[in-house]
């Protein structure tokens, strides 16, 4: 019995020692981490001090920029419409000439364009429906 008691006390001492050692081992990396974090934070603070705050551009400059771009776009649109009108006159003139020269060819072209346009619309329609059904975008 005595022997058992001594044995138990010895093992308890050993356990205590082990626990203390483990705490030391655990504390060492924790302290190291804290030091690293502090270093990192200091680095960030220095970076923040080094980078000066960017100033937002003045509003009137932005407004002027937008106005210039809008004017450019409007001019481009006007040019495109003018070009389209010139082309339109040529195509309509050609169509009228064709109609006055040969009505059959004119009618065939008209029919083909009509059928083509409607076929395109229906093709688009069914393709979109299939996409919706299959769930693909």
């Amino acid at each position: 019995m005595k022997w058992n008691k001594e044995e138990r006390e010895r093992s308890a001492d050993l356990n205590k020692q082990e626990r203390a050692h483990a705490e030391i081992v655990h504390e060492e990396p924790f302290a190291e981490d804290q030091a690293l974090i502090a270093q990192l934070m200091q680095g960030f603070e220095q970076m923040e001090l080094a980078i000066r705050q960017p100033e937002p551009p003045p509003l009137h400059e932005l407004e002027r920029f937008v106005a210039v771009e809008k004017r450019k776009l409007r001019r481009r649109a006007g040019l495109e419409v003018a070009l389209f009108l010139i082309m339109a006159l040529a195509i309509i003139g050609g169509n009228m000439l064709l109609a006055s020269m040969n009505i059959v060819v004119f009618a065939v072209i008209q029919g083909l364009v009509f059928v083509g346009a409607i076929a395109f619309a229906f093709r688009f329609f069914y393709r979109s429906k299939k996409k919706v059904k299959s769930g693909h975008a």
Partner: protein
Amino acid sequence: MPKTNPESVPLWAVVLIACILLIQSLFLFIHSRRHTKYYWIWGIVGLIQFPGPLVAYWLVHIYWPLRKERLKNRKHQYGSNE
């Protein structure tokens, strides 16, 4: 090949057809400029025939997107009610 007598078509009809085609193609050109990248094609096709391209354009770029949006809204409505 049968040839058309130019005098058989009155001038007012020619002017009317030209105006209709021009208005249609201008509408297609300007409207499709905002909605698709193929606005030149729509404009040129609109110059050739009336009302095929207009119907096709209406179906593809006006009716179908509206219908899709309406269906989506309805789905959202039912989804929130459930």
